[in-house]
């Protein structure tokens, strides 16, 4: 996708250079104007509800005043702190299990079992076709079996991995496609590497950014998941916020917690997109 731009440039470049510069500049100016307008409008549209949420999170007990109570309540509100901790743990577990499950399988399929890649892609994208609200209906019996062996709401990670499959798959496959995995693998094998070494010491390190992306997309999904937790009667972050909003007159803590989780996810994604960049060689 990093297009091979050297081809064909020479004969055209001369023609382009002779072209009146005005045309390029005009197009560039129009394009820039377009970009400014689009980004401004989009930025406003995105920011407006967030700002409203921020304002409500700083609302005092009387409408119109300012107060930091809602933010302080994130840790002190009964039931909320537990739900937050639970959801964060779930996010970590789900992300790790996702990558541990998906990455070796993807590399393995790409290198050794290519005929399965179509079917594999289908399976990974299948959760988009079987949405959470439909899946949860058939999920209760499966979960009842699991619950006989455990109690913890952390067991939700089993189904969260499935929910996040399409997103993680997309992230990892774009990373895998960007490197020439087959050549790397053949080179490593010809130097005597085992398959394990090929996968985890050669291919995976070249995909660091994609792996981090997959981890974070999965984490973001878990932080925002409501349907399955709510209908399977668990008390993670989103059902807790829903419950608080229905039972409490001053629901400022709903807004402050949502803002906090949004900022958290956004900060992580931004930082890691920069960190990943530095690691890439050449």
């Amino acid at each position: 996708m990093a297009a091979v731009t050297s081809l064909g440039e020479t004969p055209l470049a001369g023609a382009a250079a002779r072209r009146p510069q005005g045309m390029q500049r005009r197009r560039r100016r129009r394009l820039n104007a377009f970009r400014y307008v689009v980004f401004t409008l989009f930025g406003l549209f995105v920011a407006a509800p967030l700002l409203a949420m921020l304002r409500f999170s700083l609302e005092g007990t009387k409408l119109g005043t300012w107060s930091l109570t809602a933010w302080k309540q994130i840790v002190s509100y009964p039931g909320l702190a537990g739900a937050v901790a639970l959801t964060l743990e779930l996010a970590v577990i789900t992300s790790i299990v996702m990558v541990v499950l998906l990455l070796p399988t993807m590399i393995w399929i790409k290198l050794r079992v290519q005929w399965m890649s179509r079917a594999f892609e289908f399976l990974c994208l299948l959760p988009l076709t079987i949405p959470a609200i439909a899946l949860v209906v058939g999920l209760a019996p499966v979960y009842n079996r699991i619950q006989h062996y455990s109690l913890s709401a952390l067991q939700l990670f089993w189904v969260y991995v499935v929910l996040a499959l399409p997103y993680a798959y997309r992230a990892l496959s774009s990373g895998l496609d960007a490197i020439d995995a087959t050549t790397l693998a053949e080179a490593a094998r010809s130097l005597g590497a085992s398959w394990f070494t090929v996968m985890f010491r050669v291919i995976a390190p070249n995909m660091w950014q994609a792996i981090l992306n997959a981890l974070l997309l999965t984490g973001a999904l878990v932080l925002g998941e409501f349907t399955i937790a709510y209908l399977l009667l668990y008390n993670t972050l989103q059902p807790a916020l829903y419950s608080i909003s229905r039972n409490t007159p001053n629901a400022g803590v709903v807004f402050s917690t949502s803002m906090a989780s949004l900022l958290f996810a956004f900060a992580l994604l931004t930082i890691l997109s920069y960190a990943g960049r530095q690691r890439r060689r050449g």
Partner: protein
Amino acid sequence: MTVAASTGAGARPVRAGRLPRLPAWLGTLPFLGYVGVFLLWPTGILVVDAFKNPSGSWNFGSLSTLYSPAVRGYFIGSFKLCVLSAVAGAVFGALVAYAVASGKPDGVVRRLSVAASGVLAQFGGVTLAFAFQALIGPAGLLFHAGWYYNFPWGITLIYTYFQIPLMVLVFLPAIDGLKVQWREASESLGSSTWQFWRHIGGPLLAPAFFGSLLLLFANALSAFATIQAWENQIAYTVPQQIGTALSSEVGLANVNAADVLAFGMIVMVAIVMTGYALLQRRAARWLR
């Protein structure tokens, strides 16, 4: 030695202590097992139970409830909402994606936009509904939109909020695939911007665009949390009715009815996603 072994000439590996050669596809078993248990099995359960009565006996006519006026209403409601939010999200999202793609590939703007889209595409549910209620609800900061609680307009606006970022994420690779040289070539032959898009850019991007639109449709169809938090006195859409069928305390809780609705929903989404897959394949031919 190892090269010969890896090319599968039939000779056993020279290295001692290694496992005997098993078929390579066995390496995918953990994944297949996992998906089998947590995706395929629940789906199987719900498909089978859709044809059963609460008492457990078979009821092959249960799908006929999908034709009843009430259920038809839910599907029509879902359809309206999904079409509106998918089209709005696709059109505006494509514009934003183009604006992002035409900047520096490694620049701050692109980086931030992609990160923001990644987060916002997941930002739905309870918190988004409240954010919009804070903005244009009855006690809204900006103004009180009288249509905020009208179906489908208010909820379409909310859905568009996460549809646009999703469109950006899904459509950006396609725009990236539009090679610079094509634009330059058409320019050098004297075409205007409009002509370029009409004859080259448009047709090339069309499969990816419509594919992404279908993906947005499926995404809106599945959404439950957002509309549940938006209002919960009337069930307009299929997901809301599934929620009611699972948790109603007035005697209308009926898991089998929920199964039937879920089954209908899966069929609808499957059709849409097949269209998406076909269009993606077409798009990939030109834009890989």
